[in-house]
C-alpha cells in the first residue's frame, strides 16, 4: 500500500497548493484607499443609497507646455501624483530625484504617467516649470508639471490626494507639504501612498505600479 499512500499525500499536497494559489491574486491586489462616499440614485423608480469609491474629481490645470490638463488627460492611465515647488530648499530635490527614477523606469510605457503639481504657482509659471523639466531631463508628455490657481491645487491635494499642503511662513521656503507620492489607477482611485523622499519608499511604489499594471492585463 505505500504507493497509494504517497499518491494520497500527493493529492492532499496538490489540493493545498491549489488552495494557496487560489488565494494568491486577491491577496496581491492593492487596496483602494479613501473613504467611500454614499450616493443616492434612482433604480426602477426607487431611491437607493449606494456607496462609491473615493476618486480624484475633475480638475483644470496648465502644463509646462502651456496647455490645459484635466482629469481626462489622464484617462486610461495609471499615474503618480506629487506636490512640490521649484525653489523648495528641503525635500523637493529628493522627491524629484526619486520621481526621475520612476520616469526612467516607465519611460515610453503608454499606461503610466506622472503629474507634479506646484504649490507655489506665483513663482512657478509655465516658463519656470518648462525650464525645470528640461533641466531635469524630462521631455514629452509622460511627466506633466502643472500649475493653476493656488486654492485649487491645495484643495485637490488635501481633499483628493490626501496629502498636506499649506502655506507656512515659518517653514523653509514658506510652504509645508508632504513628500508623498500618490498612486492613482485607471478608475481614478487612490491605490497607494508612498514616501517620495526615500529610495525604499519609491522601490515599493514601483513594485506596486507593476502589480497595478498586472491588474489590467488579467
Amino acid at each position, binding site marked *: 500500500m505505500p504507493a497509494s499512500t504517497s499518491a494520497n499525500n500527493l493529492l492532499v499536497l496538490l489540493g493545498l497548493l491549489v488552495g494557496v494559489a487560489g488565494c494568491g491574486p486577491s491577496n496581491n491586489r492593492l487596496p483602494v484607499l479613501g473613504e467611500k462616499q454614499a450616493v443616492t440614485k434612482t433604480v426602477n423608480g426607487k431611491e437607493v443609497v449606494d456607496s462609491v469609491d473615493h476618486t480624484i474629481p475633475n480638475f483644470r490645470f496648465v502644463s509646462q507646455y502651456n496647455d490645459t490638463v484635466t482629469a481626462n488627460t489622464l484617462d486610461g492611465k495609471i499615474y503618480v501624483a506629487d506636490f512640490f515647488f521649484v525653489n523648495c530648499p*528641503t525635500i523637493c530635490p529628493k522627491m524629484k530625484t526619486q520621481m*526621475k527614477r520612476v520616469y526612467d523606469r516607465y519611460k515610453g510605457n503608454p499606461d503610466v504617467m506622472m503629474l507634479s503639481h506646484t504649490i507655489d504657482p506665483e513663482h512657478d509659471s509655465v516658463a519656470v516649470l518648462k525650464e525645470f523639466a528640461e*533641466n*531635469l531631463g524630462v521631455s514629452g508628455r509622460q511627466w506633466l508639471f502643472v500649475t493653476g490657481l493656488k486654492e485649487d491645487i491645495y484643495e485637490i491635494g488635501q481633499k483628493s490626494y490626501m496629502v498636506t499642503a499649506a502655506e507656512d511662513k515659518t517653514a523653509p521656503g514658506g510652504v509645508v507639504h508632504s513628500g508623498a507620492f500618490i498612486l492613482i489607477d485607471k478608475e481614478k482611485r487612490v491605490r497607494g501612498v508612498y514616501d517620495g523622499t526615500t529610495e525604499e519608499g519609491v522601490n515599493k511604489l514601483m513594485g506596486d505600479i507593476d502589480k497595478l499594471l498586472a491588474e489590467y492585463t488579467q
Partner: protein
Amino acid sequence: MRETIQINYVVGLLLLVNACQSEEEIKRQKYITEGKQLYKTYCANCHQADGTGLANLYPPLNGSDYLAKKDSVICLIRSGQQGPIIVNGQTYNRIMPANPQLSELEIAEIATYIYNKWGNETVTTDIKTVREQLAQCAKPSGQAVAP
C-alpha cells in the same frame, strides 16, 4: 654610552613624530566622519549622496572642476549661491540656499569630507582656514554677517 643616549633621543623623536601624525590622522578621520553626516543633511538632497548632482538641475561635486575654486566653495557653503555657475562646461542656474547656521567647524568638516572624497586631498581643512576664508567672502546683499 653616548651612542645609546643618541639612539634613545632619535627613537624618542621618531615616536613623537609618529604620535603627531596619528593625531593629525585621527583629526582628519574625525572631520571626514562628521563631514559625511553633515553633507548628508545639508548637501545630499540636491548634490546626491554620491556627489553626482541631478541632471542639469544641480551640479556634481564628484568629478567637478569647480572644486578647484576652494575659496569659492567654502564661501558658498555658508552663503549659498544665486545666478548661473559653470561646472564642467555646463551652466547651472538654481538657487542654492544659504546655511548661516553652520559653524566654522562644521564647514571645515564638510570641506574636509568633500575634498578628501572628490578633491584628491588627503589633509584636513581646518577651522583657521575656513575662518580666514569666510572673512573674505563677498557679503550676500541685504544679509547681516554672522559675527
